[in-house]
């Protein structure tokens, strides 16, 4: 909920409160409140629900975290460098009747504890978005990040909507790059799948060998920890079929289901791959 511009606001604030001028860190960004319609859209796009913990970086008067609690049933934390806004946010939370489910801290957003957040909301100028990016990419796969107006450069959003303003959603991708190996219990003979995955954020490309035969990998996609791709199984020339892989990346293991074929003739089996090299 903050917006980088420069000194003007900070100077104004300091002049008004000379006593605190020594101890207080100057905000890098002036406070520009996000319109309520955009707040609503950000939380909707992130799919916020009662299971979520929303962390707002630069929480201003608290409207994002308060809306998340009041209208979406979530819990939340807002951090802001400006202690006056923190006090105002706390008061607003009491007035909205959600003081038991939200908290506000006077803190530099780069020092915030991201630990329990499942959704992170920001409104920062591009320079600060890029500064934040490496930290966000370390978060638990599946963590959702929503922003408006400004994006993360070459980390493309997983979704974008436009209701008055551009709202962007990113889903933190699991680290999936490397070589993986799986044994597939597919009748009539077991298949050995060797998978080599390359990754750039959530964009993945892959090459496979099925029983040693190079096979192209189609429609590879990574959403959080959810990996899906298609390999055409040509083991039996008279019964070629697509293998639809769907699994979750968990450390050095991918586990999920593989569906062979389509319609009434499809068959579903479990598959499990282990990482053999990074």
């Amino acid at each position, binding site marked *: 909920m903050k917006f980088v511009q420069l000194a003007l606001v900070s100077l104004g604030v300091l002049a008004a409160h000379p006593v605190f001028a020594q101890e207080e860190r100057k905000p890098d960004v002036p406070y520009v409140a996000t*319109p*309520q*319609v955009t*707040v*609503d*859209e950000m*939380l*909707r796009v992130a799919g916020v*629900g*009662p299971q979520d913990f929303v962390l707002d970086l630069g929480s201003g008067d608290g409207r994002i975290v308060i*809306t998340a609690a*009041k*209208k*979406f*049933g979530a819990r939340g934390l807002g951090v802001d460098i400006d202690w006056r806004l923190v006090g105002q946010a706390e008061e607003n939370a009491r007035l909205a009747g959600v003081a038991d489910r939200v908290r506000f801290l006077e803190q530099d957003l780069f020092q915030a504890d991201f630990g329990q957040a499942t959704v992170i909301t920001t409104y920062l100028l591009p320079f600060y978005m890029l500064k934040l990016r490496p930290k966000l990419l370390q978060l638990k796969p599946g963590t959702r990040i929503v922003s408006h107006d400004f994006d993360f450069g070459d980390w493309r959003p997983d979704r974008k*909507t*436009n*209701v*008055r303003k551009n709202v962007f959603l990113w889903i933190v991708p699991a680290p999936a790059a490397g070589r993986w190996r799986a044994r597939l219990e597919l009748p009539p003979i077991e298949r050995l799948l060797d998978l080599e995955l390359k990754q750039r954020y959530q964009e993945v490309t892959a090459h496979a060998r099925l029983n040693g035969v190079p096979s*192209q990998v*189609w*429609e590879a996609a990574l959403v959080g920890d959810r990996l899906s791709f*298609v390999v*055409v199984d040509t083991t039996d020339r008279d*019964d*070629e*079929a*697509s293998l639809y892989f769907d699994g979750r990346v968990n450390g050095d293991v991918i586990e999920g289901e593989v569906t062979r*074929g*389509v*319609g*009434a*003739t499809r068959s579903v089996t479990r598959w499990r791959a282990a990482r053999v090299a990074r």
Partner: protein
Amino acid sequence: MRLLAAVALFLAGSAIAATPGALPDIPTPYLPSTQVAVDEMLRLAGTGPDDLVVDLGSGDGRVVIAAARDYGARGLGIEIDPKLVAEGEANARQAGVADRVAFRQGDVLVADYRAATVVTLYLLPNLVDKLKPRLLAELKPGTRIVAHDYGFSDWKPDRSVVISKTYHLYFVPAAVAGRWRLHATLPEGEREFDFELDQRYQEIRGGARVAGGYLPAFEARLAGDRIAFVLVDNGTSHRFEGRVQGALAMEGTVRSGPGRSPATGSWRATRVLRGSDEG
């Protein structure tokens, strides 16, 4: 399931010499789709038991037979080559689906396929584009068209999938361009908007005229006969979703505000016919 072969065909065609300057009508050579291609087309279309799958250029019948055998659908194959029609019929009997599929010998350009809910194409680009006006005019909105390799030249697919080959899915869009009188029951009361839409295939844009302003329609989407858009008014977003009902009406529900329990209302729009409203 037919396919253009190669440049060689164009070059070798004596028709070129016979009609200089005109692009010859080269018959699409018969090249059967692989089993994987048949699977992907029917899967991409979301084929089910309620569907009638019409395959334009049905060859040996493999698409409509798979639609009946694997998805419980009914199928109709249109094929110009009588020998292939007979082969399709024999294959259908052998697959035990002769009661659910039929083949008709004829030209895809004049065939009647209005009853289709799914249309599959594997034809030369030329022919695909030639079919387009009739497909758009005669198929019911919401009918799915799946094209293998060659899609329409200026109509963007609603979805494309690449699995060995490229497959394009199109929903036949309802015709919504024009002026509408939009009546909505919103939390603050009954509202009436003068609503306008522009359309290019499934891409729509527009907005509502209100006293002293204009509310652009955000996130406007059209998929077959299903329409959705967002109007922001007085700091609240109203999410409209509904169905187009014929040429003159559309209606649905509208959710106002965010969160788990937005206020739900209803809306209905009726077409403002040219001249009737202009005083």
